[in-house]
């Protein structure tokens, strides 16, 4: 039992941190601009591909910084020459714009890189075992991912709370009209936030592409789950996104690690649904098969019972 808990915590922590890196940018964009950016995971994918390509010339460590900057620049251009035009027509066209963009980016990636997964490996300096618990080794690269995520969280938090730029961003989050009235160029703030948000996603991609697989389907695999994090955490809240990521990561890992069904609860009370009963499928449903839909169940329940999420100030 102790083994299961240790594994689940370690694995869930890592998965949660990766989710956080992916969704922290989206929570800013979504919360501030109201743009449900469907292409967010595509920028995550671009981060992985760019880092792979750059890494061949500059090595991993330079690519770790260069790739997010490049993707951020792309994000800025997307906002400046794409979203800003669509913005005048309201939120639905914006949503459709990003929806289409996600497909365009995926096809472009297929075109340039092909459909096979990239041979994107971790740097040799990080390719060793950090420690071993209960016979399972914990690779150093995972610890590195955790470190990157923590640095990112602290940096983001300080930026938003302690700097003048953060003050303006926070202001634009809740009352963009007032911020504009105070003489700030709100569209430009939007552009920077969009660029910054996509760069954060790209940073997630740089490490996530190594941890998972760098292939054209990676964006669509991660796409839906980041929305769960954003809604559960609360719009525009970085600590909320962190907590939500952790909850989803650890909960999902736990449900996959233990054999559990409602039947177990029933057994404590000496009750069982007959196997041929209408609800028997649900009653005996193994937790491992619930796990993949669990985040989306949480999404639905959050929207019903707590629409502003864990730490959000506004309703989703």
């Amino acid at each position, binding site marked *: 039992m102790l083994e299961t808990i240790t594994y689940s915590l370690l694995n869930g922590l890592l998965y949660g941190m990766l989710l956080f890196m992916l969704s922290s940018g989206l929570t800013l964009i979504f919360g501030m601009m109201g743009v449900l950016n469907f292409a967010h995971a595509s920028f995550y994918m671009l981060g992985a591909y760019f880092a792979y390509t750059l890494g061949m010339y500059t090595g991993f460590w330079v690519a770790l910084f260069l790739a997010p900057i490049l993707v951020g620049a792309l994000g800025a251009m997307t906002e400046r020459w794409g979203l800003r035009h669509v913005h005048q027509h309201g939120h639905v066209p914006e949503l459709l714009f990003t929806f289409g963009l996600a497909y365009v980016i995926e096809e472009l990636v297929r075109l340039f890189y092909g*459909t096979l997964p990239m041979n994107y490996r971790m740097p040799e300096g990080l390719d060793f075992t950090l420690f071993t618990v209960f016979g399972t080794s914990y690779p150093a690269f995972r610890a590195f991912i955790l470190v990157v995520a923590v640095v990112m969280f602290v940096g983001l938090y300080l930026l938003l709370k302690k700097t003048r730029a953060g003050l303006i961003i926070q202001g634009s989050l809740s009352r963009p009209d007032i911020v504009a009235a105070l003489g700030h160029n709100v569209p430009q703030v939007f552009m920077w936030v969009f660029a910054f948000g996509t760069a954060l996603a790209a940073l997630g991609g740089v490490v996530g592409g190594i941890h998972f697989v760098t292939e054209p389907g990676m964006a669509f695999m991660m796409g839906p789950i980041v929305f769960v994090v954003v809604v559960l955490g609360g719009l525009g809240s970085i600590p909320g996104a962190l907590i939500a990521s952790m909850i989803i990561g650890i909960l999902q890992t736990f449900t996959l690690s233990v054999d559990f069904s409602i039947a177990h609860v029933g057994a404590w009370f000496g009750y069982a649904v007959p196997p041929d009963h209408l609800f028997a499928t649900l009653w005996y449903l193994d937790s491992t098969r619930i796990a993949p839909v669990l985040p989306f169940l949480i999404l639905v329940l959050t929207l019903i019972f707590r629409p502003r999420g864990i730490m959000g100030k506004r309703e989703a």
Partner: protein
Amino acid sequence: MSQLQKKAGLLTKAVAGVALGLSALTTAQAEDPIRIAYIEPLSGPFANVGEMGLFHFRYTADRINEEHGGIMGRPIEIVPMDNRQSPSESAQLVQRAIDQGIQFVSQGNGSNVAGAIVETVDRHNRRNPDRRALYLNYAAIDPALTNDRCSFWHFRFDAESRIKMAALSDFMMGEEDVKKVYLLNQDYSHGHVVAAEAKRMLAEKRPDVEIVGEVLHPIGQVRDFSPYISRIRQSGADSVITGNWGNDLTLLIREANSAGLDVNFYTYYGGGLGVPAAVGDRGIGTLFQITEWHSNLPVEQGWADNEEWLVGYKERHPETDWYYQRVYNMFMMLKAAIEADQSTDPLDVAMNLRGMEWESPTGTVYIREDDHQVHQDMYISVMAEQDGDQVKHDTENSGVGFRTVAKVDWQDTVLPTSCNMRMPR
């Protein structure tokens, strides 16, 4: 009848007349190609698999056209059709292919799609005995297609799931180290068959082997396999049997490797569809696959022609590898069956394919009459580092290739079938 309808009717008649004249004109020519409809996903998430298959089909057709003068002097033409991995769309495409006068349709990805095609071809041939079609299956391995749901018009050139499992379990039977086995599969028909057959055959052949765990996971949705890995570790398994393919296999093996899990993986698809490229050297010595062929087999066996064939493919498509040797077998056997009677009529071709024993450059290939299942030598191979000697060719430019560890003669792969073949007429 309104004026408009009359006009439309006249127009169709005219078009039909012209078409009839044209087709009469073209059939008269010896150059008229023999067309094969290639029905696979060419867009969407499985586009890479469909595209790679198309490369195989075109390469094989082109080389047969150049070197053997096609079939009966007529060139082979591949007609690609995008089914988006949907059974219902595939059924429509089969119909469209037949309407275009195509007599041979081929497909392989997804047994659910294959099932729909078998049904469509079967029904069409029953109703239209004058313009029949033949279905050549090169990869869908659900046993049902040559058992309960078998059809006279379906030929399968890949070994079905049970044959692969029989060969794998035979090999594992001889491995003393195999004591505890874990079954991890995708939650759909293919994964279910693999799990059920593994249990049945291991119980038969190695009663001392314990199945320590079994899990089915949703297909194509799991990003993080670490919980599954910790389950495997806690079960104390030394071997994992999995029918997983694509990312579901890649992520599993990478996760096992980084967690330091010391087990052997016995797989169906460890050698292709993006797995070697993404797994790389992390599968060396632990990733086994059961196939009819792998790229170092010609090196080990000294098949120079076969090696030249795969090198030729690599030159044309450097980003992928020759993987489906059975596509070559399929085309050559089709050629032999057509040329035997100098007829492309699907009934004649099917009659000639039944029971055919053909000597390919890679050994005997035999089509059983009872169920139209191909039998061929099967090989179990393990991932190994490319060394320029026996492991001469790597796979998917990954620096790792495969090395044969066991061979199963085709005679030993013959299993009983429940097929009750309904002969035409």
